[in-house]
């Protein structure tokens, strides 16, 4: 028998992942050794350093992508322009979201529960809510999740992709259960997300098996070649693609696989919701793009109508149900479902234009949604965040600055010009018309109008109602939340006014290597 040889590893290409992974492991050790009161700051600094190192190597490599050398780690990882763009986006968005994780000035002990194992509602639980420092295992968990996401968008075969899917999902399930307030809701959301997520992963794995049955391989190049060849019974391939798509569409929260979204977004701690809404979306769409554009490119005419129907359903469900919501976090969850639909329209548009628009949309939406959740974490009363819509009435009079910022963010979600939301929607719809999907654009525009209604209702409520006795106060944010809010809002404005640089970057990045 031949001697086994470790495949060539391009360690520089893997460094972004390795940096986050090592930092996460160090974070676990810090949890064991460092006294509780120093942990938050140390974990935060460590995470930011790791993200900076990862970003440095992503940027360094972006200048040196060569198609012949892009494949590494025995053909498991593909570092091409699209992968680097997505990795960079994930790292930057992850950084902004992690700032929210570290915030300790809004509430004593931060947004996370001190001891998640204490029974909800017990004497001990009431004591720890107000008095104990929050757990900081959230930082290593978030870093593990991020390193999984980096792998997910650069995986070159379905097996590696599946492992990456699990690596980035498992910490998210855990993070959802760690809210300091309303812990039952939080635990319920974690359990729901875990059960449904495990189910979706099983579909994905089943799909991998089917595709392997057809192509006798799991890497995208071989699948593409085999699909082009068209020999054998392609039924297996189509079943496989359908099952893979279920797994991926669950993660992007497309209807009818979106049912977990409102419950999880509402129950999870707000920083985690921001992290999920921005980073998970980028990672899941990155994976979906790679599967569809690299592996199943030859099947375009078969999956486009199905995905088109799903996109139409997603924007309709998201926008119509958003109208009926009375809780802000749920409202934003349905808005994120609708936004997943708009991004899907860009995915279906195909070609380079579609890819560019999707990449731009993901980054633009990620920044805006983090800013939105950062602001939600500011509006609070004695019981924590006041997320019920009626409580926000008259906030404009109480605190014009934050109400103004929130108005701006909502206008960006609605796609009003001079915000990044406008440019993002414009480019996605433009790409879709170019790709011959005009019917989707018509549905997209109609649902955008429907979706503007709940946003504007919040705006009207904030500015035109008199503040009542139950209107909560807006906490003065600490440095971390202010920074996150500032970055998110500024990005929304800048990408809306001068979208050129990011669009150029996305255009350069919009090429997969097969």
């Amino acid at each position, binding site marked *: *028998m031949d001697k*086994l*040889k*470790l*495949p060539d590893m391009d360690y520089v290409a*893997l460094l972004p992942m390795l940096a986050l*992974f090592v930092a*996460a*492991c160090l974070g*676990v050790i810090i*949890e064991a050794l460092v006294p509780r009161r120093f942990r938050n700051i140390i974990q935060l600094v460590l995470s930011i350093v790791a993200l900076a190192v990862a970003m440095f190597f992503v940027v360094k490599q972006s200048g040196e992508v060569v198609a012949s050398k892009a494949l590494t*780690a*025995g*053909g*498991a*990882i593909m570092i091409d322009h699209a992968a680097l763009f997505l990795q960079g986006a994930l790292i930057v968005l992850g950084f902004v979201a992690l700032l929210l994780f570290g915030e300790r000035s809004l509430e004593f002990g931060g947004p996370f529960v001190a*001891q*998640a*194992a*204490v029974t909800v509602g017990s004497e001990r639980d009431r004591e720890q809510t107000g008095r104990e420092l929050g*757990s900081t*295992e959230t930082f*290593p*968990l978030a870093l*593990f999740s991020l*390193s*999984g996401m980096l*792998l997910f968008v650069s995986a070159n075969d379905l*097996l*590696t992709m599946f*492992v*990456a899917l*699990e*690596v980035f999902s*498992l*910490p998210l*399930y*855990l993070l959802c*259960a*760690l809210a300091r307030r309303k812990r039952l809701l939080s635990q319920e959301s974690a359990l729901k997300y875990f059960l449904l997520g495990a189910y979706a992963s099983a579909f994905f794995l089943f799909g991998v098996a*089917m595709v392997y*049955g*057809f192509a*006798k391989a799991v890497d995208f190049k071989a699948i593409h070649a085999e699909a082009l060849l068209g020999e*054998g*019974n392609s*039924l*297996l391939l189509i*079943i496989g693609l359908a099952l893979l798509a279920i797994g991926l569409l669950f993660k992007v929260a497309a209807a009818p696989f979106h049912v977990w979204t409102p419950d999880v977004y509402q129950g999870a701690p707000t920083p985690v919701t921001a992290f999920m809404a921005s980073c998970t979306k980028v990672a899941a769409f990155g994976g979906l793009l790679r599967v569809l554009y690299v592996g199943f490119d030859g099947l375009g005419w078969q999956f486009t109508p199905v995905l088109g129907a799903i996109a139409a359903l997603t924007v309709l469900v998201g926008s119509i149900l958003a109208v009926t919501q009375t809780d802000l976090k749920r409202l934003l969850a349905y808005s994120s479902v609708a936004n997943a639909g708009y991004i899907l329209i860009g995915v279906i548009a195909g070609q380079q234009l579609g890819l560019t628009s999707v990449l731009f949309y993901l980054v633009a939406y990620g920044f805006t949604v983090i800013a939105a959740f950062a602001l939600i974490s500011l509006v609070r009363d004695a019981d924590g965040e006041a997320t019920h819509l009626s409580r926000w009435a008259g906030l404009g009079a109480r605190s014009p600055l934050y109400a103004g910022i929130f108005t701006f963010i909502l206008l960006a979600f609605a796609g009003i010009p001079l915000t990044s939301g406008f440019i993002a929607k414009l480019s996605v719809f433009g790409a879709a018309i170019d790709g011959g999907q005009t019917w989707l654009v018509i549905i997209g525009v109609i649902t955008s109008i429907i979706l503007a209604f709940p946003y504007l209702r919040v705006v009207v409520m904030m500015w035109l109602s008199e503040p009542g006795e139950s209107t909560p106060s807006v906490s003065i944010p600490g440095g971390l939340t202010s920074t996150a809010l500032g970055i998110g809002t500024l990005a929304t404005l800048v990408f809306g006014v001068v979208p050129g640089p990011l669009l150029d970057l996305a255009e350069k990045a919009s090429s997969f290597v097969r």
Partner: protein
Amino acid sequence: MIDVSWGEQVVFYILAPIAVIGALGMVMARNAVHSALWLVLTMLSLGVFYIVQAGPFIGMVQIIVYTGAIMMLFLFVLMLVGRDASDSVIETLRGQKVAAIALGVGLGVLLGTGLYRGTVDLTPVGLAEANKNGNVQGLASLIFTKYVWAFEVTSALLISAAVGAMILAHVERRKDERIGQAAMMKERFLPGNYPGPKPGPGVYATSNSVATPAKLPDGNPAQRSISPILPLRELEPAEKADKHTLTGGHQS
């Protein structure tokens, strides 16, 4: 048509129904322990299938790791947590069960027919080549060459799982909660506290249940003799009635 040897067919037709019955039993069993045992049956059958289909390693892993270790651990946890058969069977969403069964059967039929049509004229290839150097060796070479990165990354999964288990299950005790021996003794002999051991539950001719309180000298039930988490057992009139044991059965 795929050529399947006679022995393989016999094994399949015996074990396949058993596996399906196990799966159905796992879903339908009311008792969590029974559910787990049904699942063990299905897993063992699948393990034998894998071995029969020339995958001895995955077959043995299925039996030793999944069935032997994980399911048994699962059973231990069920026993430790305390099995509770009183799961609510009331549907919170009306018609959910029917809809779920209909959709599930539909999906099963769809996938089943799809798979049948997709594989009916398929010729399996590559088994001899994959097992050329032996099954275990073949797997090992794949894990340590082509999929080495995925294999290493699973360690992140394990660490997250361990951290998660610690977060969700472990309660750190605070310093002021740790009571020393001296303090504990002082508390024990404080006025108002009864320092002796608690009496056991009542043992009578009619009942020796742990939920039956012992009787104090004046005939009242001794509340300290039963565990506070047990519901007090309601005695039926026949049990409550005087059995005349003291008078030798003679009614006075």
